[in-house]
């Protein structure tokens, strides 16, 4: 990757073979729709076709589309919460516990008579505070993020038990405005879908259209090179974890509202699905970079498959199997594509060449755990 600090941002050098103004629209469109960029979309379409044939009465309907959106919005929010730290190559394994904690905390506050808005703000504040602690542990204390956030997750679990005594917080006072935050629906589409869309747009803008986004990716790809290029690597990682805490906190509040109670185990079931979605999403659109658009595609792809299987009354194990197969296939393909690209580049097979900006993509998703 060619990096620079033009205009305070990390600039990327356009491929020298392209004419000024970029390639023609048709070629750009074809490139954007190439299987290696949006392969999941093709798989998604295939899945829709399969289920439309399999369960023609119920699957190809507007109600199914709404159901897929409604039932996957919180998974999407959880996945987006970890997209930013992962872009900076930092794991946040505590996000699911943060979701649980803010859910029970806000439920307890509302039951205790705190005005809803104040309770929500406190809940988000708790998420941000935990993000701050995570950031301190990972960036300041220089503890590996995988272990560090696992440890803070354990501490948060202790706090959850302390607050709830492992008993859900439920009360008639949660049935009013609190439940409306997550249960209100507009023509069958619930508010969490709207939150998911808003957060996705915000993260897309941050990562794709700001200097901070480019620096985050640069940090994730090669922190040493980024540091030498003038990027505040530690600051970005610190802020990414704080952001993750805040977003996870907000997601937990929405989850508790959807459940109508503060569940002491509410967030933990989202740990694996969120990581599955964000890693699958990293194989889409940006070739190995964690990105909001890819995460949306992944959430919808996985959600469509699981909803379709449920509508087809498939056995209970089939949904987990579907997610596992799709995830392994997607990540394996991405890894193979990377290796093939590197090999062909090394042997000079292709004529077009790999642009200088291609380097950050190499194996980010598939090799993150090895290198972090």
């Amino acid at each position: 990757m060619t990096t620079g600090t033009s205009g305070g941002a990390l600039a990327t050098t356009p491929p020298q073979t392209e004419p000024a103004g970029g390639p023609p629209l048709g070629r750009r469109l074809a490139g954007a729709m190439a299987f290696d960029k949006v392969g999941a979309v093709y798989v998604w379409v295939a899945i829709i076709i399969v289920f439309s044939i399999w369960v023609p009465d119920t699957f190809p309907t507007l109600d199914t589309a709404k159901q897929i959106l409604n039932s996957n919005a919180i998974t999407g929010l959880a996945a987006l919460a970890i997209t930013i730290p992962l872009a900076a190559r930092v794991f946040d394994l505590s996000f699911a516990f943060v979701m649980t904690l803010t859910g029970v905390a806000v439920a307890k506050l509302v039951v205790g008579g705190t005005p809803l808005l104040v309770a929500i703000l406190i809940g988000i504040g708790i998420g941000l505070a935990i993000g701050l602690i995570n950031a301190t542990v990972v960036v300041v204390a220089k503890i590996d993020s995988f272990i560090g956030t696992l440890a803070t997750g354990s501490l948060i679990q202790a706090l959850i038990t302390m607050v709830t005594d492992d008993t859900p917080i439920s009360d008639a006072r949660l049935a009013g405005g609190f439940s409306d935050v997550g249960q209100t629906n507009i023509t069958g589409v619930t508010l969490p879908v709207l939150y998911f869309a808003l957060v996705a747009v915000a993260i897309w803008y941050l990562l794709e259209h700001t200097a901070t986004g480019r620096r985050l990716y640069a940090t994730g790809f090669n922190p040493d090179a980024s540091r030498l290029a003038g990027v505040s690597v530690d600051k970005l990682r610190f802020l990414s974890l704080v952001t993750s805490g805040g977003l996870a906190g907000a997601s937990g509040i929405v989850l508790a509202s959807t459940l109508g109670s503060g569940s002491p185990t509410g967030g933990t079931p989202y740990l694996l699905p969120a990581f599955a979605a964000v890693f699958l999403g990293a194989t889409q659109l940006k070739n190995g970079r964690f990105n909001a658009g890819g995460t949306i595609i992944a959430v919808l792809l996985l959600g469509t498959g699981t909803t379709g299987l449920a509508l087809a009354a498939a056995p209970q194990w089939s949904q987990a199997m579907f997610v596992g197969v799709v995830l392994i296939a997607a990540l394996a393909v991405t890894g193979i594509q990377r290796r093939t690209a590197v090999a062909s580049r090394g042997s000079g097979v292709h004529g077009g060449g790999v642009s200088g900006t291609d380097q950050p993509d190499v194996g980010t998703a598939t090799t993150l755990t090895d290198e972090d």
Partner: protein
Amino acid sequence: MSTTTGRGPRARTWPLLATLMALAALILVAAGCGSDDEGGGGGGTSGSTDVGAADQLVNDKSTRPTQINQTKPIGKEVPTGKKITFISCGVEACAVQGPILKEGAGILGWSVKEVGTDGSPEKVQGAFEAAIRDGADAVIVNAADKDALAKPLADAKKAGVEFVTCCSLAKQGKDVLFNTATPEQNAPIGEMLAAEVVKDSGGKANALYVNVSAFAILAAVGDTFRAKYKELCPDCKSDTIDIPLTSLGKDAPDRIVSYLRSHPDVNYVVLSESGSTGAGLSGALRAAGLADKVKIVGQGGNEAIYQEVEAGNIMAVVPTALYSYDYAMLDALARKFAGVPVAETSPEFWLMTKENAPSNMSGPAFPIVEDYKAQWAKLWGKSA
């Protein structure tokens, strides 16, 4: 943005292979579906619907019990100062039971030490062994897996430490002094739910039974539901879906909604465990436009579920009799320590609806029999 071009044909075939793998998974699933579906079976055999019998059963079970089922006084002095260890299991029911056990033990002049665990066998075993070393007179574990506890149970036997449990498949015998909320005792719950559905539908029910097979203790509830349902309404249809443990608190409502959408004739949902499968269900039904098309009944629950009953979102539940379980376990220990035989008893069950729901249901559990404390104390020869 990367613009990788010029890849060899091999690279291009891999994405296609991935697609095929994903679709192959679906086909595999479809094949599995064909052999594994319709466990519940439908009604189908023609016969006469006995709404009157259903009505009678519902009427019998719609009055909140005022009397505990144990009626036999101990008749001898119950020694005080006994040390009981309650090994909590990290789930809501255990957390709720600790204070109830302490309350009951207080009446008997005993102390209860609550030991928190995450419910994993090794943690429970460790806590059990520690309780024996600690000189406990008795140990209580909820939903005890007798096989997983074989060693501490043998050690307890040697040390003269009594063991009682609830909600377990374990049979009473040499290692287990007492077990309550057994599958046999839970079985009538299924009949009550079946009667409520048949009665309410006037013999035109099509019910979905939502099972959690991981809760083996509740299997009998499903069996009796299906048997009674078929007996009362041979033409009524029913089916069963299984919810995996990993879906509880996450996508269980979505699985139920999916089933209901693909089976639009279903008009009743029967929850085998309302607290875990019913969380968020009424909201999901509303969003799917199904809230007015199906009615929900269920076994168990928690404060949130009871509020749904009060609000009319859930038609009826048979509330969990946690107070009954705990006082019955203490009763068994009291009889053992007093030197009299353990007297069998079963929990009190009752069909709670919006109309008969008590007004004081705050807190995670409430006693089925209001003056339970005084009644148990009287049997024990103590004052509440």
